[in-house]
């Protein structure tokens, strides 16, 4: 049993977590079908060191040197204690190996085994070893430069059920992309853990794309995500306006807009702008009318009808007053509202302001009267120093989640 699984038991983790780990282990073990069980330990051992030498020694005693050599050839690693030169060795072609019959004891052929091992443990020959900047790189800004995801795209790593701590950021990025493409991870959300829910989302994406459906993110799946996830290219920031010139502030979609069920909606954007030394100010006008199945008004979801929210920009045009590490500046969410029907809309007018009008009473959260704005400075009072209207956008629709219906019609 893995450390992870034993830890779960010791700490009384939920049953589903244990199941996930068992699924993970089962998936890994299947790659070794037909091979001595020590092969798994061999692959997990560091490529040099006492642990590896001990495993090799024991396998030699048990299987003899000839069989041991075949096993070692199979896992494409040098003999124990030998300096690791994996990337320099000729890559054994995957498939069509004359030794395949030696490993026919289970469902995996040697070619499958090699492919799985290469993906699982990042062991590949120099022929396919790539680096960032070699011309085979991710182009979607949401992925580009993420070393883990670049390695996945280069077939040096894979993301699959279970994930190491250092994979949290990469997995969360993939989860977010899957969600933006309509393959939701509703229970655990964007949590950085590649669990059973994420496997299902990956499989749904793979099926839609017409590629191999295995729930594993390898180079092919990564390439499709890179192409299909929103925001495939970085917007070019317009040049700063000359004195008296026009300010441009345009929303660039980074996720959604997507309708799911029971009136749920989400849409993420970031600002592509040339504003400097001031504030991007967005005026939001909300409508939300919900009814219970019996026709009575549902009052649970009550967006603030009208408010202004602001993003501070510095002399270089960078948004400075709130973290934007995930590349999103503005996030619209209407929550699930089960067993209701109704209509909603969000209208946005975007302006520039050289400062926050003190008379408008901007504040964060409830202090500004508009908790809808999250952590942005906001107010329900119109500022007096807004520029002429710069841009607009809107969304909305009707939904019906009553009496067995589950529809959402964009307006």
């Amino acid at each position, binding site marked *: 049993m893995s450390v992870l699984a034993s830890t779960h038991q010791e700490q*009384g983790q*939920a049953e589903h977590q244990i199941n996930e780990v068992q699924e993970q282990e089962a998936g890994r073990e299947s790659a070794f079908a037909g091979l001595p069980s020590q092969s798994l330990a061999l692959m997990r051992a560091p490529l040099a060191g006492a642990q590896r030498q001990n495993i090799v020694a024991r396998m030699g005693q048990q299987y003899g040197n000839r069989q041991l050599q075949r096993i070692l050839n199979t896992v494409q690693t040098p003999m124990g204690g030998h300096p690791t030169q994996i990337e320099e060795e000729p890559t054994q072609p995957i498939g069509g190996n004359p030794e395949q019959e030696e490993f026919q004891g289970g469902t995996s052929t040697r070619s499958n085994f090699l492919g799985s091992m290469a993906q699982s443990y990042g062991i590949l020959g120099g022929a396919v070893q790539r680096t960032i900047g070699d011309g085979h790189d991710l182009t979607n800004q949401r992925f580009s430069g993420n070393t883990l995801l670049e390695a996945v795209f280069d077939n040096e790593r894979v993301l699959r059920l279970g994930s190491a701590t250092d994979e949290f950021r990469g997995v969360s990025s993939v989860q977010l992309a899957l969600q933006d493409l309509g393959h939701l991870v509703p229970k655990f959300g*964007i949590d*950085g853990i590649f669990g059973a829910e994420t496997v299902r989302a990956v499989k749904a994406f793979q099926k839609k794309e017409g590629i191999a459906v295995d729930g594993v993110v390898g180079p092919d799946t990564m390439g499709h995500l890179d192409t299909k996830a929103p925001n495939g290219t970085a917007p070019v920031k317009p040049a700063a306006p000359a004195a008296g010139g026009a300010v441009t502030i345009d929303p660039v979609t980074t996720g959604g807009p997507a309708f799911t069920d029971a009136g749920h909606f989400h849409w993420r954007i970031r600002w592509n702008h040339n504003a400097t030394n001031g504030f991007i100010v967005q005026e939001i006008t909300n409508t939300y009318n919900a009814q219970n199945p019996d026709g009575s008004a549902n009052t*649970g979801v009550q967006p603030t009808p009208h408010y202004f929210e602001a993003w501070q920009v510095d002399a270089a045009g960078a948004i400075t007053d709130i973290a934007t590490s995930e590349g999103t500046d503005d996030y619209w969410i209407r929550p699930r509202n089960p067993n209701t029907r109704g209509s909603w809309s969000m209208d946005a007018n975007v302006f520039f302001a050289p400062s926050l009008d003190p008379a408008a009473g901007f504040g964060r959260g409830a202090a500004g009267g508009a908790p*809808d704005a*999250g952590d942005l400075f906001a107010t329900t009072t119109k500022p007096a120093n807004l520029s002429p209207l710069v841009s607009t956008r809107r969304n909305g629709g009707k939904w019906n989640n009553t009496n067995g219906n589950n529809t959402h019609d964009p307006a």
Partner: protein
Amino acid sequence: MLEQKKVFELISRCSKWDGYTFDPGSYIRAVNILHQESKSEVIEQFRDYVNSLEMSGIGDNVFFLLRLLFEPENGRTFPSVPMGKPVDSGEANLANFPLYPLALVQDVPLLISSGYILGGKPGSPLGHIAFCEVNCQLRAKDLRPPENPLGLADELINSLIWYQKTEGYEGEEKLATLRAQLLRLIRGAYQVQEVDDPDFYGTLKNKTVWEKHLEAFQKLKASWDSTNNSYK
């Protein structure tokens, strides 16, 4: 100190801000394990966790766990969760619910706001972490739910501190969502198929159905297992 992967999993597996799927047990497990560690190390692990996530701004479960794991000192109260406007907040008397949108009822955390409205930018949990570092201590004792927690939703919603109308369609919906949260809490001893389905709660509006669950759990004579942090 617990290994980082273990801590990350404890945090990640805490339910998101969705009253229709919320599982109180996920928080009780995390709190009861983490409060035994040193404050400085827990704080550091939380920072590492938040910084490791791509969507650092969407940290609803981090906010919630911090509010349950730490206790403010010197009369301070937690700042509000800067995720947007909570659903069902219209008549909230937040003085009664210092952990809002959570309510801690006999050591059982219930999510009393089913979701949130957002039209802006959610705040990072890093601010909450800093608040805890300066103004709070880790809670001293385990969360220890009562032997039979299934009555807690009805007790809460009929109590004087409840802030919403308890009659009519929306009152029934709210009560059913809280009952479903409690059924998820006792899953170690009493498992209901589809309990994780977001629409499952609807069945619990039926008085007969709910009473059958109450009766079945009562017959089990289940108890809280403080070793495994679940009912058995």
